[in-house]
């Protein structure tokens, strides 16, 4: 089985819904170790994305949708997360630009490209208490599942579960990138908001592919 444009659209819609639902929670997490805008910024961005989906051409490819998400997030989110997520979707789009449908390999390529995009822009390493701590285990889990011959649904589920664990595992960490890095030891005990939103986005991907 492979995932087409319909799935990408469904995923983006589900993401917008889950971000809206978790807006206050993401603000709360960012308030604790950042500046309290992460949920607001992403909600503004994905709301703008929803408003643009109707303008897509009927024959839009998965890459087209991902690119629209990328440019819309870049021009509406701001802050650190705007360029980081924007780059992630942009690189994912580029990675699958020739695929009408995403088979397991394309899916893993897209996830890997997204993660690499975030790392190349933000220069964070695993353990720095950023969204990379959700994306890296997610990509690893997705790649492993694909190696084992899993279907797209299972691959995304593996990625989402790993991202959720990764997000939870940011709690004991001291941050070394982003605003939370100014806190030193005081960041300990708080979950990174970007890692949490990343886990939500990947869970939406798995849910819509199930």
């Amino acid at each position: 089985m492979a995932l087409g444009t319909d799935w990408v659209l469904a995923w983006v819609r589900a993401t917008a819904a889950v971000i809206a639902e978790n807006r206050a929670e993401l603000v709360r997490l960012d308030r604790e170790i950042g500046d309290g805008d992460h949920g607001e910024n992403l909600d503004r961005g994905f709301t703008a994305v929803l408003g643009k989906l109707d303008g897509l051409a009927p024959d839009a490819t998965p890459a087209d949708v991902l690119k629209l998400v990328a440019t819309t997030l870049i021009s509406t989110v701001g802050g650190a997360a705007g360029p980081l997520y924007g780059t992630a979707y942009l690189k994912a789009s580029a990675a699958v630009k020739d695929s009408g449908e995403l088979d397991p390999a394309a899916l893993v390529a897209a996830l890997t490209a997204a993660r690499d995009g975030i790392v190349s822009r933000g220069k964070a390493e695993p353990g720095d208490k950023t969204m990379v701590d959700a994306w890296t285990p997610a990509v690893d889990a997705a790649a492993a599942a694909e190696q084992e011959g899993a279907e797209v649904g299972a691959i995304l589920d593996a990625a989402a579960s790993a991202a959720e664990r990764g997000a939870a595992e940011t709690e004991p960490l001291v941050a070394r990138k982003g605003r939370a890095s100014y806190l030193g030891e005081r960041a300990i005990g708080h979950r990174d908001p970007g890692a949490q939103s990343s886990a939500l986005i990947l869970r939406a991907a798995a849910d819509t592919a199930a």
Partner: protein
Amino acid sequence: MKKLINNPRTVVEEAVSGIAAAHPGLLEVHTDPIFIVRADAPKQGKVGLVSGGGSGHEPLHGGFVGYGMLDAAVPGAVFTSPTPDPILAATQAVNGGAGVLHIVKNYTGDVLNFETAADLASAEDIEVRSVIVNDDVAVKDSLYTAGRRGVAGTVLVEKIAGAAAERGDDLDAVTAVAEKVNANVRSMGVALTAPIVPHAGVPSFDIGEDEIEIGIGIHGEPGRERIPMEPADAIVDRMLGPILEDLPFSDGDRVLLFVNGMGGTPLVELYIAFRHAAEVLTGRGITVDRTLIGNYVTSLEMQGFSITVLKLDDELTELWDAPVQTAALRWGR
């Protein structure tokens, strides 16, 4: 939360329209995307200066648009760096053929968004340089963090680089002056209360009635340490210590002393802090040669202040003294 607003979602849009109404002749406001530009931009042959960042720090940056300072300011959502689109549009609007300098405070979001805008502008053959302001000595171990933040020292970079651009320096020279200011300026802040971001509706952090946060950022990000409330002079001592050690400033130096209010602290209290800061500097053989006091880089209604010290030489002093005509800083014309 009690705020003089109509709707948390329209704060920035309504405020910039107020800025336009309050300062006609000086600046113009574009609304889609939002940026503030000098009324006479672009000035042919002059290096254009663009800065920007989250809203909620007014008068930074829109209050510094005008003769001898910024050519454009790009306000993001409250406490959120602007996206590349308005930065690009502002860059285009002020490009007078001599290139554009981006003055960026060192926050991941600001750096990334200005970076993208600069790339896009370069693709249109506009020569863009960036200076990253990172004057906040409160950030320790800056190798293991996102680095020092850009705080109140930004005003001094904008004023002095603006004067260099106004007198006709080229892009390299203006960039070099901006970097020289950044290399010689150090700041540190303290908060007595927390700001309330309109869409959040609750204070950005919890702080007890007897506590203060030393080394606070300007977005409610926490600082070095939380300590019990102290008398003003003791707080000033705590802040000046790391500032003076860092450059270091030493006996015989001439400096500009800048005491900046974060928004909610009465001016009468800022003067009390200024008095002691000037005393301490003088006591160390450092001459307070230029001064600035007031609410210039704020954090909404947060009570608190920052101290900024800039080591002066003849060039920086001359550029500081040069005429400036903006909403928030004005002399000489």
